[in-house]
């Protein structure tokens, strides 16, 4: 049977084209790679190459023909050993193989627009005895314990080893684990973030420290494109168990390029988990969970919190499941969500408001993605009011996401509009007074809570 040569689609958008010129004539021998014809597409004139070998038996569409639909037979090719008589035996014209189309719509998970969790998030356990620790020590202990537990875990970043950490978070780790596992890098964020992801492909469990998350913008392509998307793109073939950690958000008087919250940036992306600890217990429990997680996890710390002390469970198995928020203060008047350093601001505001008889329920989100929607919705159904608090910018921020979720899942329970308290929508100023104005203050939170209480 002669082989039908079909009008090709030579661009992703081409549906028809002009057969400009034949470069082979009937009777010409054709081998694979020979240019058969020139075709004008919607974008350019392209050469059409032969795939099969044989003799050009018959031209079906003459040169100069316009509007030739893709997949129209344009010529017949005689295969080796066939003679021209075979051309008369082409009975059926080509019909493209029907693609087994599967158009049924997959139902999204019923409660959320977000991809469902592959397994249920475990309940948080209750741990006994605690010890007083700074956030800095808790983070260090989390890494040390996980490095003792799993030889595949290593720490890499700028100044993490000999300098003991730019903010002294990795103090003592070089001494205990050696230079093979606590690795000073050159100043090369894109390079070492990508190297870390490659090492995760290779089966290791890297902890990549950014001196601050501001510098992770140099590396964001590897966090999103190389780490977060690869499991999906490969149909589940290639996980990346990797932690990206470091201080996030505004420190103090360091200007716009060094004062930014990345929660919304990273939480936007499926395939990533994002956590933002507040207390030392959060820091230890969440970082341990992040290191053990088989997925890429972004751990957003806060420089101003490193020196603050909290009670941390002593239990060596202490861990906080990613995806579980914590009610830091119970109340019935208003729900107030916050994460990272802003939890402290929320608690102080709640104290002020208590004096006015407003009982604020403060939720420490801890996980930004996955978000503990059940916890927030449950609280709002009790208080009927919600204020969200974050240091980051309002536009497409975490408060916006929470407001949408409440709109979708607890609209009928609301007695007031969901209200956001955010960083001001400007690059962070340097001047002390302006910096203070740009960041949420206790009085901003108090005012917002009173507003949703119509007081």
């Amino acid at each position, binding site marked *: 049977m002669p082989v039908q040569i*079909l009008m*090709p*689609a*030579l*661009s*992703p958008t081409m549906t028809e084209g002009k057969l400009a010129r034949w470069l082979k004539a009937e009777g010409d021998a054709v081998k694979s*790679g020979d240019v058969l014809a020139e075709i004008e597409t919607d*974008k*350019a*004139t*392209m050469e059409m190459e032969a*795939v099969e070998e044989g003799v050009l038996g018959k031209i079906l569409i003459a040169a100069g023909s316009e509007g030739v639909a*893709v*997949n129209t037979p344009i010529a017949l090719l005689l295969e080796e050993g066939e003679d021209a008589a075979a051309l008369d035996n082409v009975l059926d014209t080509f019909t*493209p*193989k029907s*693609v*087994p*189309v*599967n158009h*049924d*719509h*997959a139902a*999204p*998970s019923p409660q959320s627009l977000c*991809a469902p969790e*592959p*397994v249920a998030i475990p309940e948080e356990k209750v741990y006994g005895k605690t010890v007083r620790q700074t956030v800095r020590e808790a983070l260090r202990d989390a890494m040390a314990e996980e490095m003792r537990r799993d030889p595949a875990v*290593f720490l890499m970043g700028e100044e993490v080893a000999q300098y003991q950490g730019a903010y002294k978070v990795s103090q003592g780790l070089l001494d205990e684990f050696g230079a*093979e596992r606590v690795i000073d890098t*050159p100043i*090369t964020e*894109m*390079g*070492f973030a*990508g*190297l*870390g*992801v*490659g*090492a995760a*492909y*290779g089966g*290791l469990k890297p902890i990549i420290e950014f001196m601050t998350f501001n510098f992770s913008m140099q590396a964001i392509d*590897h966090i999103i*494109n*190389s780490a977060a998307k*690869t*499991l*999906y*793109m*490969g*149909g*589940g*073939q*290639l*996980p990346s168990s990797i932690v990206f950690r470091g201080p996030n958000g505004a420190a103090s008087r360091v200007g716009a390029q060094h004062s930014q919250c990345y929660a919304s940036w990273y939480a936007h992306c*499926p395939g990533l988990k994002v956590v933002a600890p507040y207390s030392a217990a959060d820091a230890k429990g969440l970082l341990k969970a992040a290191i053990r997680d*088989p*997925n890429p996890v972004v751990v957003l710390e806060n420089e101003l919190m490193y020196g603050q002390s909290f009670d941390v469970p002593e239990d060596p198995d202490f861990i906080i499941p990613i995806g579980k928020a914590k009610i830091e203060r119970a109340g019935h008047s208003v729900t107030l969500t916050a994460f990272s350093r802003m939890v402290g601001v929320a608690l102080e505001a709640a104290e002020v408001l208590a004096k006015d008889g407003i009982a604020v329920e403060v939720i420490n989100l801890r996980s930004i993605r996955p978000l503990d929607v059940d916890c927030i919705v449950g609280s709002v159904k009790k208080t009927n009011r919600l204020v969200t608090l974050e240091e980051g910018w309002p536009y497409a921020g975490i408060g916006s996401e929470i407001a949408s979720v409440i709109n979708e899942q607890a609209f009928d329970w609301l007695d007031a509009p969901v209200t956001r308290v955010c960083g001001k929508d400007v690059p962070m100023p340097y001047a002390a007074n302006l910096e203070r104005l740009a960041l949420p203050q206790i009085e901003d939170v108090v005012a917002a809570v009173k507003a949703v209480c119509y007081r």
Partner: protein
Amino acid sequence: MATARRRSRADAPAVTDAELIGYYRDMLLIRRFEEKAGQLYGMGLINGFCHLYIGQEAVVVGMQSAISNARDSVITSYRDHGHMLACGMDAKGVMAELTGRAGGYSKGKGGSMHMFSREKKFYGGHGIVGAQVPLGTGLAFAHKYSQDGGVCLCYLGDGAVNQGQVYESFNMAGLWKLPVVYVIENNKYAMGTSIERASAGTELCRRGVAYNIPGVAVDGMDVLAVKAAGEEAVARARAGDGPTILEMKTYRYRGHSMSDPAKYRSKEEVAKMREQHDPIDQLRKALTDKGLVTEDSLKEIDRAVKAIVTEAADFATTSPEPDPSELWTDVLMA
């Protein structure tokens, strides 16, 4: 110390007759596979981006012959179908990924540029130009950390060599003596921009000089020259002496992607490469001259290769689209 030199056929290693015939078959399989992919694209069965490897087959076949598939890892950019076949990945699974079907390596969720096989130690398939270079350097880091004796072959193009992250990687690989071989496939054009228009220094083998990484320019149209250079570089990496840059002088016959009319180069230039330097023709002639093949045995190889490609195309056009429930799977590991 950093050197840049040229390699020719004279350094070619000893290979058995069966290996030579195997290289011919492997190169032919890649070519026929890519031609078929081009045809399926023309029929609307493959969509989006599709970057064909036709013309460059000697690079990947020669390099893969220089490594141990059991322990060495491979990573490349988006012009990756040839690398997958050379790594021993199944032609059916690769073609079915191109058609976006459930039988594809990525269940139809990745496409031409995004396929992986941990079993074959093929780590992609990366669509961001240059991104595979730090990733490959990380695979090499993992080999060294785990002391598994493995080496990473990290392929990149002449377009990628002007990305900053490539030099961040060279620096760390040189500094830490990581077991990696950077294989620059210099096909002279980064999409439509010739190397002369893109690079202040066009001797790409010298790009590691500042990092004390030796570089070698290799005739990338000669599978034996590639193999010889590859074996030396892999041995160096395995011995703990660090990375090597191999600049493979090669050529792609087709456009950058399927919709590229390739107006940035002359027809004569393409024809000259095809007629005088084609890697498959060159090896066929060598095999014929040595009396290792006959007209009939070559036809037999042709038939066998064609059968694999036809079977792959049939599989890729009859495998169903992924089940809609697959939309929500593989976002996160359990």
